[in-house]
């Protein structure tokens, strides 16, 4: 048996009763509806029913379904998957630990590009950095040839 069948009549507008019960009407609308409620038993019953329903829907008792024991097993499986993912990341360049750092570098780089001349300077710096190891290696090998057998040989 439904509430509407029990009441002297059906609610005039069930949608408005719902909106009023959840505080969804504006001030003027609510005032008008409250005047209607003083003379309409069916709508008063509907509003009371919805208020009770909304309260029940939000109460902790309703939410407290038992949590199954299997969640612990799932938790163990997930920890294992996590370890695998971290290990894979470490092998592939350590994305987990590098991502924040890379994001920071990218952010700074994006900001610097807005300053005139910085892009050109950046390209020059990159080119220099690319060539430096070759230059350093070349000087180092020349020095090594001059020193001869090396530090270990002189001891």
């Amino acid at each position, binding site marked *: *048996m*439904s*509430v*509407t069948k*029990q009441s002297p009549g059906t609610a005039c507008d*069930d*949608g408005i009763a*719902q909106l009023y019960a959840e505080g969804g009407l504006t001030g003027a609308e609510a005032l008008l509806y409250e005047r209607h409620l003083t003379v309409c038993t069916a709508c008063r019953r*509907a509003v009371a*029913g*919805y208020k009770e*329903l*909304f309260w*029940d*829907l*939000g*109460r902790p*008792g*309703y*939410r*407290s*379904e038992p*949590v*199954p024991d*299997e*969640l612990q097993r*799932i*938790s163990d*499986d*997930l*920890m294992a*998957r*996590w*370890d695998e*993912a*971290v290990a894979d*990341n*470490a092998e592939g360049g*350590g*994305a*987990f*630990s590098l*991502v*924040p750092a890379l994001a920071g570098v990218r952010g700074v780089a994006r900001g610097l590009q807005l300053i005139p001349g910085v892009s050109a300077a950046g390209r020059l710096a990159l080119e220099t950095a690319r060539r430096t190891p070759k230059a350093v290696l070349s000087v180092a090998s020349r020095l090594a040839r001059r020193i001869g057998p090396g530090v270990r040989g002189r001891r």
Partner: protein
Amino acid sequence: MVDWTDSEVVAACRRGRPEGFAQLLLRYQERVYRRAYSFLHSREEALDLTQDVFLRVIEALPRFEEGRPLWPWLRRITTNLCLNRLRSNPTLVSLDEAFASGDGSGAVTRADLLAAGTDVAESALGNVFGDDLRRAMAALPPLHRVAVVLRHQEDLSYEDIARLMDLPLGTIKTYLFRARRSLRQSLAASWEG
């Protein structure tokens, strides 16, 4: 145990520290399960979905912005995965709700308990009408149920629900209107038996 903030959990996870992910599970696994259960009303489906949610989290954590709260993100993943399931299997209904054995016949009515006016009534109401409400919720069309849960348990606005469910606002209003009317009628029937 020291309580971690969401930011600390995310930072630890992104550094690959297992205790960070353990904290994430400790704080949110049960909540994700409960939310999945409230959408799907099936223990097995909810367990399966909980696992899927955290597998997604493992994939996506490196891209998650530090400082953002975790629950809205987890709720979005949970809701989206649930909706995918419900859309791919619209017949998915509760497998756990023992409708056959729980017809309420012979049970005390809500009026009886309220009339008792004792503390017993409060806890009994929690159990008896919690069960009634769960049954009524399980009987709703799945997408209507998702909308009700997001509105009344997550306190989301109609607009946020529409965005989350990727449906027009008018559709959400219709779902909520029909679902709540149906719930009130079902509960009135069982309460006043």
